[in-house]
């Protein structure tokens, strides 16, 4: 079990974080570090791509919420790309669909950032 994190620059002063694997109490610190490093560098507009995430639990949700809270302090935003119905279900039942912008494609998530 592992999580792969890939960070890439995208047009319009924003970054995309591609996540692949499982986000749980063991792997979520790696995701938290990736988000935190970008925010520390002054990147406040993020797209986090969850298309290849097979599993997420409350610690993973906590990391995403923490990142969103930090960027919002700087007028930024975090949009998510999520197509896995099981992952979307977790955002639905926790009510986080009302807090995050959740999109079916990276293009849509990028366009909605600005």
């Amino acid at each position, binding site marked *: 079990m592992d999580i792969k994190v890939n960070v890439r620059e995208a047009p319009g002063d924003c970054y995309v974080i591609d996540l692949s694997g499982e986000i*749980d*109490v*063991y792997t979520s610190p790696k995701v938290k570090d990736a988000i935190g490093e970008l925010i520390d560098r002054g990147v406040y507009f993020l797209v986090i791509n969850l298309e290849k995430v097979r599993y997420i639990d*409350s*610690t993973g949700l906590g990391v995403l919420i923490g990142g969103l809270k930090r960027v919002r302090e700087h007028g930024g935003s975090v949009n998510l790309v999520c197509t896995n119905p099981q992952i979307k279900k977790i955002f639905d039942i*926790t009510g986080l669909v009302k807090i995050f912008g959740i999109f079916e494609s990276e293009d849509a998530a990028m366009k909605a950032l600005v």
Partner: protein
Amino acid sequence: MNPAVEPSDKELVELRIPSRPEWVALARLAAATVANRLHFSIEEIEDVKLAVAEACTAVIQHDGHGEFIDLTCEALSDLLRIRVRDSGRHGLQRAEAPNMNFDEARIAGLGVFLIRTLMDEVSYDVSPQMGTDLLMVKRLTSPTDH
């Protein structure tokens, strides 16, 4: 893979893992394997995995947890009964502990909320002497549909 559990069967799987984050994946895999022996749907198996992981995580993330977590998965004809026990002196109730900041408490509470939402029955005892003892049940909604 052997056929799913027949109505008259009862299967019991017990697993002891160290109370550390790197072992939670094994606990949820074990629970998913037992759930798969019944006729649960893929979505229901995912529910079970998440509930078990949240229970283990809740134990691990709080001070005073025991050295091990004991997971018991019991497959009956129409339900899966799961018990998560920890011999530490704190447990799920620490989700509302006063030394946690507001965000930490909310996220810890999210785990308990998920367990209650995804499983059909949930009960737990937390005592200074016995640690955490969480019992949860997932029922087969319509066995013939799966």
